[in-house]
């Protein structure tokens, strides 16, 4: 079996910062990313773009990307980490399955978007903000002709900018958070100049294109035969309930949605790291010490996979973990000081943009909740009422979580549903337990180990 000194899983800003910091100190690093190109979601399309960076963070991230190839870094793109057993990583790519033993591991697996279900959300034409952004940024394509953006959080603006760069026709941007919530968090918003400036860039672009940015509104229904044809927007009251009589039907062929990000914790769960539920970090996150080491020795997590906080946080955390691994502790306190305001800002964003429980009622009993297994909200609500109060129990009584996505899409939604139906804390619903393979692997590859 091949061995490496340091395996970095995920080549977004956090992983890049970790890999290059360690490599610069002479460590032999293996940098692994599932996508055929490094850069993570944050830098999709960065290699071919001529657009100037929107922030210092993006600029630094691009600089890191340009340091590849690096003599001390073996880059394995298009490579999935599908299992982890102690310090052995199970890998899969076009060459097949192989195993890699890593003395130390830094997980930088990022986050994924959360979309709250409502009638019609499974129609083609309804996608995440990130999906639309990738089509635009990386492929220079528009997802459709009449585009609506909805959800909550800064990604709404970033996605709008990427789409407008391709001359998208954006009908409106609907931010679900109520104006009152913005006021409540106003003082904390001033915490991060770079992010504010980034926000200013987005605000400018939207203003220049005269795109309506409506706060306190969301999409409550999508309609169409085989493809999206129209959506229904509504105003929300302070509790997040649609206000009767405020509904407005809008003709659209594309609806891009996103309600914040969820940390990708499958790897840390599979590695049996301790986790805690922290809403200020986006939900379930692995616990870490001051050097970002998890409860498993020599296993570190950086960036969104340990708490949603943006690329700026990931850059710093990647450095901290790599410095800790290379025993260069004296540089760490400076970075930790820089991290603190970013953590506060990130926490504020997560709390501000956290969708209110009322939004879970948008899904009627006919709405599909588990997309893979096509399980409807009604069946799930009944199972909860019948006593299924954990994700594990729901998986047993319905078929949720048993499909190809292994609960990545529905897990966060089910947690919210259980919490509101049982009037209980979200963490009491537990988590889906990941098992290898974390994503589907062909039997032929499993049957035949590739020895490079």
């Amino acid at each position, binding site marked *: 079996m091949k061995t490496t000194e340091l395996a970095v899983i995920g080549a977004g800003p956090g992983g890049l910062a970790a890999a290059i910091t360690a490599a610069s100190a002479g460590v032999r690093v293996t940098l692994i990313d*599932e*996508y*055929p190109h490094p850069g993570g*979601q944050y830098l999709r399309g960065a290699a071919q773009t001529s657009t100037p960076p929107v922030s210092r963070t993006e600029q630094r991230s691009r600089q890191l990307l340009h340091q590849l190839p690096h003599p001390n870094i073996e880059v394995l793109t298009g490579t999935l980490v599908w299992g982890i057993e102690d310090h052995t990583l199970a890998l899969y790519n076009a060459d097949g399955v192989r195993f890699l033993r890593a003395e130390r591991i830094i997980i930088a697996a990022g986050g*994924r*978007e959360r*979309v709250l279900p409502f009638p019609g959300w*499974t*129609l*083609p*034409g*309804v*996608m*995440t903000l*990130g*999906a*639309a*952004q*990738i*089509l635009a940024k*990386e*492929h220079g*394509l528009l*997802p459709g002709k009449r585009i609506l953006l909805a959800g909550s959080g800064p990604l709404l603006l970033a996605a709008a900018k990427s789409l407008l760069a391709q001359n998208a026709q954006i009908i409106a941007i609907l931010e679900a958070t109520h104006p009152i919530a913005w006021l409540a968090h106003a003082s904390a918003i001033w915490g991060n100049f770079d992010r504010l400036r980034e926000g200013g860039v987005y605000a400018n672009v939207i203003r220049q294109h005269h795109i309506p940015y409506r706060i306190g509104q969301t999409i409550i229904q999508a309609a169409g035969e*085989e*493809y999206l044809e129209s959506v229904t927007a509504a105003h929300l009251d302070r509790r997040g309930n649609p206000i009767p009589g405020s509904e407005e039907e809008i003709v659209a062929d594309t609806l891009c949605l996103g309600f914040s990000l969820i940390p*990708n914790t499958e790897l840390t769960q599979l590695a049996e790291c301790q986790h805690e539920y922290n809403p200020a970090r986006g939900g379930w996150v692995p616990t870490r010490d001051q050097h970002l080491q998890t409860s498993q020795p020599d296993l570190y997590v950086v960036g969104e996979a340990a708490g949603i906080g943006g690329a700026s946080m990931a850059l710093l955390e990647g450095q901290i973990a790599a410095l800790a691994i290379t025993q260069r502790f004296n540089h760490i306190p400076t970075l930790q000081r820089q991290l603190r305001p970013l953590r506060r800002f990130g926490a504020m964003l997560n709390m501000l943009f956290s969708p209110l429980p009322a939004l879970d009622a948008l899904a009627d009993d006919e709405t*599909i909740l588990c*997309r*893979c*297994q*096509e399980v409807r909200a009604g069946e799930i609500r009944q199972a909860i009422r019948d006593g299924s109060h954990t994700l594990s129990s729901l998986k047993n009584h319905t078929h949720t979580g048993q*499909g*190809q*996505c292994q609960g*990545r*899409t529905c897990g966060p939604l089910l947690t919210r549903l259980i919490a509101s139906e049982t009037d209980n804390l979200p963490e009491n619903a537990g988590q889906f337990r990941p098992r290898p393979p974390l*994503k*589907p692997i*062909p039997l032929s590859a499993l049957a035949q180990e590739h020895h490079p």
Partner: protein
Amino acid sequence: MILESIEINGQSVLVPAGQSVAAALFAAGISIFRHTHEENAPRSIFCGMGTCFDCLVTIDGIPNQRACMTLVHSGMKIRTTANEND
């Protein structure tokens, strides 16, 4: 821009090298990738980053491949759901 020749549902198409299969399909005007097993409901790109498993198509005869995570290569044969078994 380098172009590559691929096949989508039996038709030859030229696409930019390095494009994702999902993007290539969208560019070719195909936005419904498959129909679900239970309800025969149409699905397409959803998360765009390989976590939702909605965008599954058949590539070079192998079914259930994520279009958003696969880049096209010259000669690739892509089939969306209605045409899987041709």
